[in-house]
């Protein structure tokens, strides 16, 4: 369920890194807790975000929740798919429904994030 090559936060975001570019999303657990997602608010490309700071927000029928950036960097691309199809976040949170891609400014930050196994223990789901 939780890809081995992703890194996770206790706030339920994931990041996967390839060639200095991180792809960020929210976890399967997060979408399940939020329930049906109806709106996704994301920053513009070019925005600089810091680790642990608000990246955007996700609105479900229950609540609006902030999404925190698992790493620092400059936003390169925002997932346009979510503008008209926020429900994709419920269907494929680790795949098609990524939120943003960013250029990592401090790759060392990845060392402080959770592994797939640790994240699953954290949310109480069996590995």
């Amino acid at each position, binding site marked *: 369920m939780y890809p081995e090559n992703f890194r996770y936060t206790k706030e339920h975001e994931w990041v996967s890194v390839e060639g200095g570019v991180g792809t960020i999303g929210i976890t399967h657990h997060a979408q399940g807790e939020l329930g*049906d997602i*109806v*709106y996704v608010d994301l920053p513009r490309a070019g925005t600089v975000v810091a680790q642990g700071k608000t990246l955007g927000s996700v*609105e479900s*029928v*229950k*609540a609006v929740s902030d999404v925190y950036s698992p790493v620092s960097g400059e936003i390169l691309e925002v997932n346009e798919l979510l503008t008209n199809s*926020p*429900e994709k976040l419920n269907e494929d949170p680790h795949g098609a429904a990524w939120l943003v891609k960013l250029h990592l400014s401090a790759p060392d930050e990845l060392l402080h994030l959770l592994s797939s196994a640790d994240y699953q223990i954290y949310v109480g789901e069996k590995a």
Partner: protein
Amino acid sequence: MILKTRPHLTQNEPLLFESSSPGKKGYQLPPLDVPAVDPKTVLGAEHVRDEIEGFPEVSEVETIRHFTRLSTWNYAIDLGLYPLGSCTMKYNPRVNELVARTEALAWAHPYQPESLSQGAMEIMAELERCLAEITGMDAVTLQPAAGAHGEMTGIMLIRSLLEKRGDARKKILIPDSAHGTNPATAHMCGYAVQNIPSNARGLVDVELLEKAMDETVAGLMITNPNTLGVFEENIVEITKIVHAKGGLVYMDGANMNALVGIARPGDFGVDVMHLNLHKTFSTPHGGGGPGSGAVAVKKHLEPFLPYPRMKREGDQWAFNYDLPESIGKVRAFYGNFGVLVRALAYIMAHGGDGLRRATMDAVLNANYIRKMLEPYYDLPYKAPSMHECVFSDDRQAKKGVRTGDIAKRLIDYGFHPYTVSFPLIVHGALMIEPTETEGKREIDLFVEALISIAEEVDEDPQLVLGAPYLTRTSRVDEVTAARKPIVRWRPQAAVGKAAD
């Protein structure tokens, strides 16, 4: 068993636009007995409005029936318990209405000269005095139109004082058990928000607060009792920690119904707070507004209060605009005056002892419900409840039934739902606030309804998942409504045209 409701005929009603026929009128004027003139010639064309296309044309009786029929579809506090937690949906005593509709008050005009407004000004001055006494604060503004407006006014006052000291600072601390409007307010006033987690008892973690509090923090926004209905027992220590580093304490007074006549925020270190007159002081609420978010402050924030403020000149009241440090006006005129009249009527009808008694009854009612429902619903935080209690759907979720489903079923039993899924620190929250309005009979019916639903969940969860059954409309698709909202009616022909 469903005791409170049975099926009842209600009439279908189209939109007023759909009832329209060209040429129908709600009034008839006598024939013109003076020469007709063209308004465009007399007033200038730019001042004359064009006809509104598609404006409904209906008779008077059709209009009256339209709104009366719609009103029969409603649920209201005048029909029964309205247990929306943290909203304090209390009954609005009719004497308040009687007073507010006194001709001299109802027809007073805000541009009336001060000399002809002395009675209205006396009412506002007296209300300010009462609210200052109830909260233990030094000065009050009645301008803000609702709670979040009061919050914004309050944080602007804090910013003004800090700016005068030389540094507006950067951050506002907000406990995770606060009202959702608090972070929004801080953000609107240009502050970053730092979250303070609650401890296992649902109270502000004092150690974490102490660590977070430094010279970059403008203040703390705290709701007391918090959204779990729990009194922050360390509030004196909390306010001392904030003050020690030069910050100020804002209290969201939305839950004042648990404190009036018992504890005064001014006595436990709060610098500025708002009151929801439409909650605690019984003025109409929830679509029946307008509201009032009066703000009370300590002496050091008084110079910054919105102008004008009332002052005494001889034996007369006058408006004082000469307040150079004021943040300015936050609302046209002097607030929602009709609401202020009702609030003062409520306070005076109760008197000090009566207000204290209302608070005690509100707390008693909430604790009775808590005790009666504890065997059936999970109670995640065990700290003593004040005016509301918060359960979680933990037990029912094991059968696939969530708080939202239980709320829908409660409608079949003849009650307005409780607050669903809030506060967020409780997973699947059922937040219940009965207020002092309710007697034992209505509360027992409510308790029996929730017990009966808990039994239904055990025996036949599908029944609850399909609810409501007795309403005009079965369960609506909230997800599609949120994802693809249709917010404006259009004539069928235009809908077809738009589709082309």
